């Protein structure tokens, strides 16, 4: 094309742009008036401001201004010098793109960044006008409520998402009538079929949920909902009376939103200006409401990035031993040490002879978020002739459901059992010698340890019997079967979790799991990680973001946005300039003692975890203001009492809690901001899809279900969406555009859709009506390769993930593991370099006896080993208490004499020895605390082991002295008893499953 024609085209284009712009703007006032005429709610919105707004090109060659008065709009061509709000476009092209009905997000973000699109005027007025324009685009949905499916009986059927799976929500007269699992219709994609053992297996055409979802209506309408902003009655900072010691004790009074928000915004400024960077602390719960926009990786991340805050450094609590241990054996830092999942369901069904579920209870944990999707597949096991073994100190829900042999080692002794299995394999030659030679490193070093050449102890089944309590014959026979058959190892609920990794030296358990699978030929057909929970044959190539892909955080460094969204969802970046963080496990020590130290960690590299972090960080202030968002968390933290004590200390001048329910930490706040559930606002998501650190976690599902999360009802009381609360505070700090680009939560929901492959499938108008889309599975001949098969066969990595990052390969890119040798390292070279003498994490995997197990110091006083894995009927604290339905489930809580006690499980022999019987109120105690529970006497635990779930949603002492010495906790906050010691000294991880207790009958009278 010649230069002339390019010039001509540009001129023509300019004219065209101008015509479109002037046409759009010419009709704007008419459009606004027309919309006001047909919808009273919109008319009210129009009447909110009486102002004049100017829209124009920078050079004033074109302009149109609008006068808003009492709900009607006049439009005039030209320039009005008295306009209070000005929207200035650099040129016609930008004006056209931004004003076009379907906005060009990339053009918008670029124009805003480059100053080619400017909005001048007082914040409140500019913000109102800007959002009014967006409301025009969303008029159909926001005002005409043109979304959802109308049912024959007049009910509306909407779609929502939860931690326990997506749901249909039936609404009538502004009230939720019912929530149900989704049955698919004829239009929805058909499922996949797996052919195995001469049979065909196809999941039913529906999506499953679990209690975490089905309980939700009672949580939404819970009497414990916080419906108004509140202030602690004796919190009076104006007069210098903060009465921090009364937190958790004194009551609350209702205040207005303006009072609450003005205070919080002013306090953020005061604290940061007075003390300096780092003085505001932001904390977000991990399993709050479902949805990519409302998630903590999105809205709260962007908010805290905008205001500058010290953030919590989360220990990798689901992964612990994997993140701190297994990464040194085979890398996988991008998954926090978990194994690849791809297409393992099909491979397992076709090729495996046995599945060993080791500290693996997907029936309780749903893997993560996956309802009962895996349950359907595990139900097939009895038709597949695959043997099953469950190894867990507690007969967990997967063991009760999937028939097999339950082996119950004493807590924290699993490594001894595993080492003895390897010992049998070594002595009897029952392992894949060729694989070990070609695909592993320094096997001989581990063999010397296992067979006792280094320490004189041959670690036989007999050796482990005294340690684990499991008869030698059982281990010997299991090892022989395993060593001569194809076995899948389900280590943890999803592969890479498991309560065994959250105990003393949980690193060694995760490492030994990898060692066992490696010895048998990890990645060969039928030999892999998995328990039919993760790795279904779904379409991994269709892109829809998971919540950890960052939503609208604009945070390209600490969410998956940097990898997955940078080219799909143009948005202004956000970054927290304050680099200080505090280990969540050491929060009380950091805030009360003023300092803390722990190891860093990174999903990108193995080596990052060899560095220390400290609080306070250099040049940073100590924390003075604590801003908590999301669910109750205290019941999930070891030695919980410390946190109650911390909240009452005067170091913390202000505590703000943005919460849905009045429970847990919310009761320690000075100011409470009432948030609503996701059923009362917009969001968007995919079933069980995390993205980021659990990439493609939707492979736990039988279907990929992508859904809009409809706003089903108005927020209860005066509660607001978390997004809107953050926005209001941001507005008060002059951050309104910076926080949200002026977009509402609904706008961002639509932008997630636009950033995904959904745009290729159906228009927004259809998506928002039906509410969901089922991604068809790939045809059988296009399914993903099986995880690690590439490695077993010495090929370049061909599974669909782009990690490890290039620099983590020491040799040829894409070849081998994320280790210096590129092989699975029985002796870890990085650990050897870091500290070869670290007794708590040696270069080779070893059995290290717990500091809080049989024979340890506390064992002189407390003889029962307590494990406290996840609860089945609540997702951590989400679902528990709140007067919700699950509290009536006898496996969740026990109603005794008017109080719903947390359940504590004990073997009949142990109960008899203590004179206890079923349904007794018992006091569970050790040096760290006292907790009241309801006793369930059961053969689901062997003698010497006791079980009670973590994650009580509340914390309440009998003496009304939260955090006080020798107080009795009555709601069942079992973590009061668990140790704060890290799983190993250089590993920032919790060891809640290493806990000794004693139990006695409660004689202290009625509990209320």
């Amino acid at each position: 094309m010649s230069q002339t024609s390019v010039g001509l085209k540009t001129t023509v284009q300019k004219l065209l742009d101008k015509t479109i712009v002037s046409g759009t703007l010419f009709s704007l006032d008419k459009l606004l008036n027309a919309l006001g005429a047909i919808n009273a709610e919109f008319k009210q919105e129009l009447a909110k401001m009486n102002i004049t707004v100017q829209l124009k090109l920078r050079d004033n060659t074109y302009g149109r201004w609008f006068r808003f008065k009492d709900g009607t709009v006049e439009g005039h061509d030209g320039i009005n010098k008295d306009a209070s709000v000005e929207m200035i476009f650099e040129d016609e092209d930008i004006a056209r793109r931004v004003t076009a009905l379907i906005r060009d997000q990339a053009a918008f973000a670029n124009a805003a960044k480059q100053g080619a699109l400017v909005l001048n005027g007082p914040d409140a007025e500019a913000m109102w006008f800007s959002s009014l324009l967006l409301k025009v685009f969303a008029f159909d949905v926001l005002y005409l409520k043109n979304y959802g499916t109308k049912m024959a009986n007049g009910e509306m059927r909407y779609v929502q998402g939860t931690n326990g799976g997506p749901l249909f929500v039936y609404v009538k007269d502004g009230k939720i009538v019912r929530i149900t699992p989704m049955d698919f219709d004829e239009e929805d994609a058909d499922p996949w079929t797996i052919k195995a053992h001469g049979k065909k297996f196809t999941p039913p055409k529906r999506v499953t949920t679990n209690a975490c979802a089905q309980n939700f209506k009672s949580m939404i309408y819970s009497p414990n909902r916080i419906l108004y902003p509140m202030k602690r009655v004796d919190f009076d900072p104006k007069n210098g009376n903060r009465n921090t010691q009364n937190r958790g004790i004194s009551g609350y009074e209702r205040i207005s939103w303006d009072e609450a928000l003005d205070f919080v915004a002013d306090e953020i400024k005061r604290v940061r200006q007075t003390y300096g960077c780092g003085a505001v602390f932001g904390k977000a719960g991990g399993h709050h409401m479902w949805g990519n926009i409302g998630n903590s990786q999105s809205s709260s991340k962007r908010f805290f990035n905008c205001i500058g805050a010290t953030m919590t450094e989360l220990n990798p609590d689901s992964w612990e031993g994997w993140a701190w241990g297994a990464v040194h054996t085979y890398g996988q830092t991008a998954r926090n040490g978990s194994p690849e999942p791809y297409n393992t369901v099909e491979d397992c069904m076709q090729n495996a002879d046995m599945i060993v579920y080791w500290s693996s209870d997907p029936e309780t944990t749903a893997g993560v978020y996956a309802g009962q999707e895996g349950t359907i597949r595990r139900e097939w096991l009895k038709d597949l002739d695959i043997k099953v073994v469950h190894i867990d100190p507690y007969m967990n829900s997967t063991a009760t459901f999937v028939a097999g042999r339950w082996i119950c080692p004493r807590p924290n002794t699993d490594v001894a059992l595993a080492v003895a299995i390897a010992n049998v394999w070594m002595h009897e030659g029952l392992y894949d010698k060729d694989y070990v030679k070609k695909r592993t490193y320094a096997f001989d070093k581990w063999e010397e340890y296992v067979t006792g050449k280094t320490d004189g102890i041959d670690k036989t089944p007999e050796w482990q019997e005294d340690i684990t309590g499991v008869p030698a014959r059982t281990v010997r026979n299991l090892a022989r079967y395993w060593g001569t058959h194809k076995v899948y190892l389900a280590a943890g609920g999803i592969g890479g979790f498991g309560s065994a990794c959250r105990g003393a030296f949980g690193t060694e358990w995760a490492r030994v799991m990898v060692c066992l699978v490696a010895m048998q030929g990890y990645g060969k057909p039928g030999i892999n990680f998995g328990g039919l929970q993760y790795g279904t044959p779904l379409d991994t190539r269709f892109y829809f973001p998971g919540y950890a892909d960052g939503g609208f955080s604009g945070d390209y460094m600490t969410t998956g946005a940097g990898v997955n969204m940078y080219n799909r969802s143009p948005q202004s970046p956000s970054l927290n300039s304050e680099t200080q963080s505090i280990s969540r496990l050491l929060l009380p020590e950091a805030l009360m003692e003023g300092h803390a130290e722990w190891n860093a960690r990174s999903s990108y590299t193995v080596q990052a975890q060899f560095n220390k972090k400290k609080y306070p960080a250099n040049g940073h202030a100590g924390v003075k203001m604590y801003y908590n968002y999301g669910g109750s968390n205290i019941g999930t933290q070891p030695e919980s009492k410390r946190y109650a004590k911390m909240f009452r200390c005067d170091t913390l001048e202000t505590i703000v809690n943005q919460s849905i329910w009045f429970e847990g930490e919310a009761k320690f706040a000075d100011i409470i901001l009432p948030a609503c559930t996701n059923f009362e606002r917009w969001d968007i998501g995919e079933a069980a899809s995390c993205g980021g650190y659990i990439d493609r976690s939707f492979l736990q599902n039988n279907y990929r279900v992508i859904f809009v999360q409809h706003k089903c009802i108005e927020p209860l009381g005066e509660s607001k969406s978390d997004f809107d609360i953050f926005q209001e505070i941001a507005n008060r700090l002059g951050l309104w555009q910076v926080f949200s680009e002026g977009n509402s939560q609904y706008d961002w929901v639509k932008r997630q859709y636009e950033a995904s492959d959904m745009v290729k499938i159906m228009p927004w108008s259809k998506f928002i009506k039906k509410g969901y889309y089922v991604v068809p599975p790939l045809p059988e001949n296009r399914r993903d390769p099986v995880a690690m098969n590439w490695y077993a066969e010495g090929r370049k990595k061909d599974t669909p993930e782009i990690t490890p990052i290039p620099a983590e390969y020491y040799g040829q890119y894409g070849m081998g593991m994320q280790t210096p040798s590129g092989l699975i390292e029985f002796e870890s070279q990085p650990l050897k370099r870091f500290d070869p003498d670290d007794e708590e994490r040696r270069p080779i995997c070893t059995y290290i006896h717990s500091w809080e197990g049989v024979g340890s110091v506390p064992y002189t006083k407390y003889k029962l080993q307590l494990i406290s894995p996840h609860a089945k009927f609540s997702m951590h604290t989400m679902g528990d208490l709140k007067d919700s339905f699950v509290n009536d489930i006898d496996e969740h809580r026990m109603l005794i004499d008017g109080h719903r006690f947390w359940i504590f499980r004990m073997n009949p022999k142990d109960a008899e020895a203590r004179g206890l019987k079923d349904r007794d109120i018992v006091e569970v105690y050790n040096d760290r605390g006292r907790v009241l529970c309801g006793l369930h006497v059961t053969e689901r635990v062997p003698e010497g082991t006791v079980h009670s779930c973590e994650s009580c949603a509340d914390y309440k002492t009998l003496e009304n002295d939260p955090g006080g010495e020798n107080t009795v906790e009555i709601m069942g906050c079992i973590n009061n008893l668990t140790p704060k010691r890290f799983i190993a000294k250089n590993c920032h991880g919790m060891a809640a499953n290493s806990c000794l207790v004693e139990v006695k009958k409660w004689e202290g009278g009625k509990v209320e």
Partner: protein
Amino acid sequence: MKKFHMIIDLEKCAGCFNCFLACKDEHVGNEWLPYTKEQQKHDLKWIDVKVHERGVAPYTEITYVTQTCQHCDNAPCEKKYPEVFQKRSDGIMLIDINKANDPKYADACPYGCVSWNETAQNVQKCTGCAHLIDGGWKEPRCVQACATRAMQTVFCEDAEWDRLVERQGLKPITDGSNKPRILYKNLYMYNKCFVKGVVSTYVDGLEEGVIDAKVELKIGNETIYECRTDYLGEFYIDRIPKNTGKMAVVITAEGAEPLTRDFEIQDKSIVLDPILIGEGEAKANVILPNEHALQQALDHMTSYDAEDARKAFAKEKK
């Protein structure tokens, strides 16, 4: 006419309690007149899941037994209070809410499926979600929420149902005299007993399970069942009727004399002590910490934890 029936399969129930929660979801906060008033939020359950435990650790078995109104055709409630309990032609048993305002009616069901709701001033029970069924739903909420289809609704003619009962071996959870419309599959997990055991031997001083030994279950001299030990040397015989009384297993391992173990089945399942073939001493299944184990523990601690522990134990001994 097609009538309402339900099948509950104990083998398929994962104990998720979705049925219970879905029932609450449908009936708490909603009033489905004229079928029923609102269900009480807590404590009263129209459908419940009971946990049934068999065996001892580590040979424990847990079964979830879902129970609700059985919509009996020969219903004790209807017999006792015909003015209150009325059966529809499709088999669903309903309560007349206008007449059900006396707590005395709560004793109508010998299976405990009727209860008095103080708030609603009504006796209540499962309605089979008749309000939904009449509105075109294919199944009640409990069944719709069941992931594994451990619960299934069957609308069919009587004759077809009879064939289904025969073919699938469906059984009532009662003695059957009430002619329930809810029948169970794999009820043995609830009302029968098992016997489990392990056969072991010593080879070169090391204990191992004996694989593929013949196991005969006997009453007197009659062999009523035969199986073989599995890869762990264990055997598992289920579906033994309660109160069968004295029984025995006879173990025949290759190259060894048959060994007999007597036991008695009353109302509990039995886990036999380990059965040892040849010389040696079999150990129990769960071993409590002994002196040796305590020493082992110290040997495997970090040096500093072990030092602390030794001091603590020395102090305790003093």
